[in-house]
């Protein structure tokens, strides 16, 4: 899961990015509205966390521009402007959720989780596909036989993205886009290496290779 974080506060921004990374997300941090809008338009994100009082371009305008361009990117507004009418206006402008500052980190993570689940049309809190159950808090996976396997950060992000999109053909580019941050070294060979390591941990048959096209997780067995 790759997130766009648009926050101009020089202390809060990096801090939030760190918290979100720790929670298993790839995070791109942008500190102004113009870059924020551009990133949201050009990169493949799974959700965006948007401040309203941004230099360059107000957050609400960035959101409206995304929406009028047809983007359905799930967006949480994170702002000190949290009067009720401001929340309503934020939602009317196309936000999916609105969180007032100051907030607790767990609250943000819970809302983010709920937002992503809504976007994936998934009702149950636990991500469970093809016999695997992902423990998002501890960032490990439970196999069908009950054995719990530890995952590294990238492995976790890769597996989660594949489990969220079971049965779909996922190209290496798409996987790279959703697993790595924008400034990371994007070598598709690295994805191959991680797939190989994942197969060792969760079993070969769960990730099918389509030569020249990409991978399919879980096959036909959900």
């Amino acid at each position, binding site marked *: 899961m790759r997130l766009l974080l648009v926050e101009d*506060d020089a202390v*809060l921004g990096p801090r939030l990015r760190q918290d979100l990374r720790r929670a298993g997300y790839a995070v791109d941090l942008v500190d102004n509205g113009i870059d924020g809008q551009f990133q949201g338009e050009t990169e493949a994100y799974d959700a965006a966390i948007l401040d309203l009082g941004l230099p360059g371009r107000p957050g609400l305008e960035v959101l409206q521009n995304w929406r009028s361009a047809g983007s359905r990117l799930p967006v949480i507004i994170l702002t*000190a402007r949290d*009067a*009720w009418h401001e929340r309503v206006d934020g939602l009317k402008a196309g936000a999916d959720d*609105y969180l007032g*500052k*100051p907030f607790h980190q767990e609250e943000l993570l*819970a809302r983010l989780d709920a937002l992503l689940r809504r976007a994936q049309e998934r009702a149950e809190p636990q991500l469970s596909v093809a016999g695997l159950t992902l423990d998002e808090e501890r960032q490990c996976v439970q196999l069908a036989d009950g054995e719990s396997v530890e995952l590294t950060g990238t492995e976790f992000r890769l597996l989660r993205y594949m489990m969220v999109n079971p049965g779909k053909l996922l190209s290496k580019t798409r996987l790279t886009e959703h697993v790595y941050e924008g400034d990371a070294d994007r070598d598709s060979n690295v994805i191959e290496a991680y797939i190989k390591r994942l197969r060792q941990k969760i079993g070969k048959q769960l990730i099918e290779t389509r030569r020249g096209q990409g991978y399919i997780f879980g096959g036909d067995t959900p």
Partner: protein
Amino acid sequence: MNSLAQRLNIGLGISLILLMGLIGWLIYDQNQRLADELIVTRLQHDGEGLLAALQVDAEGNATLVEGAISAIYQRPLSGHYFLLQLENGGSLRSRSLWDAELSGTTLVPGEQHTRRINGPAEQPLLMWAGGYRKGNHNVTVMVAEDLSQLQQRLLQNALLLLALTVGFLFLILFIQRRIVRDSFAPLRQLGREIEQLERGDIDRLTEAVPLEVQPLVVEVNRLLQVMGRRLERSRHALGNLAHALKGPLNLLTQLADDSETPASLKQELRRHTAALQQQIEQQLIRARLAGAGSAGQRFNPAEELPALITVLERIYHHKQIKFECHAPSQNLSNIDRHDLHELLGNLLDNAAKWAKEKVRCVIEQNEVIHIIVEDDGSGVTEAELAALTERGHRLDETRPGHGLGLAIVKEIVELYHGTLELDRSPELGGLRVRLSLSLQ
């Protein structure tokens, strides 16, 4: 009486009555004079004719030449009379006088006069008399004519004139009423626009109005704009202040959540940041409230409520709360959109916080706005009810939220001179908040 239309009608009525009365009287008077002059001229001619026909013999007996007198003077009480009086005491009178007399004084030659007298059979007469000298005799000629027929005609004319005048008066007043009504049509339109303004359907008045009321309308528009801008500016400034204060506060909160922060410090940090936050929220919200009679935007329940409920559903995403709302579909009059959002937001937030699965909300508007919000939570005891609306009072310290909700609600209700009642919901079992907002 303070109706402009009525004042105009009465003013016009009085001036018309005065004017027409004056004209009527002038016409009547002139007619009378003209008639009198014509009659006097005729009487004079007759008198001169009589004088020419007068013969006085050597003994001083007066006679009139046979056939010189008009037949009208022969018929008894015909209305035409004469009397010739000589200075020697002899006199000649018309046969028409019958047994009556024309009373008159003897005049010296060259003297003339005209006057009204009472003649035979109660006839009002106009009499002309003149003194002449014929031969060696001084003669006074008196000729009179009955005026009753003429006076009757004059009276008839006057009555006809009066009838026409009254008719015209009513016609003119009727036309005036229509003119006034047409001229006041823009004012009625203005009244309707002001109602729309109160509902917030429009944000300024149309300035295409008659010249006389235009300055008023322009001024109202200017005031609306000034007030709206002032409110907008102060709200914007408050938003900036909130932004500036909450940034550092947010960092402190994050610091308290940080796993690397020592547990003892965490406690302290949490307590102080919570107190700070409560103060900031409270003061910011209070400062943001517009109050009754504000010029801001209006609240349209059909448009705003679903969005507000979505906000709440996101906040309470871990619960499946069903919001059931009944509200009018048009704008609510006389209440600021932001204020009502703050009010409903806090009420519904509070209800959702305590509800198991259902929150009900009813909004009605007649002369006042009634709002009922109830939930199916565990409810509250009497003692808790009393303490509940005190500022910052929290029933349950463990649940999220800052406990300001109902205190803010109370403040808004006071701002709108309303009433607030808390009790147990008879149907749902939880807390029921009933409030009314006066709009004047």
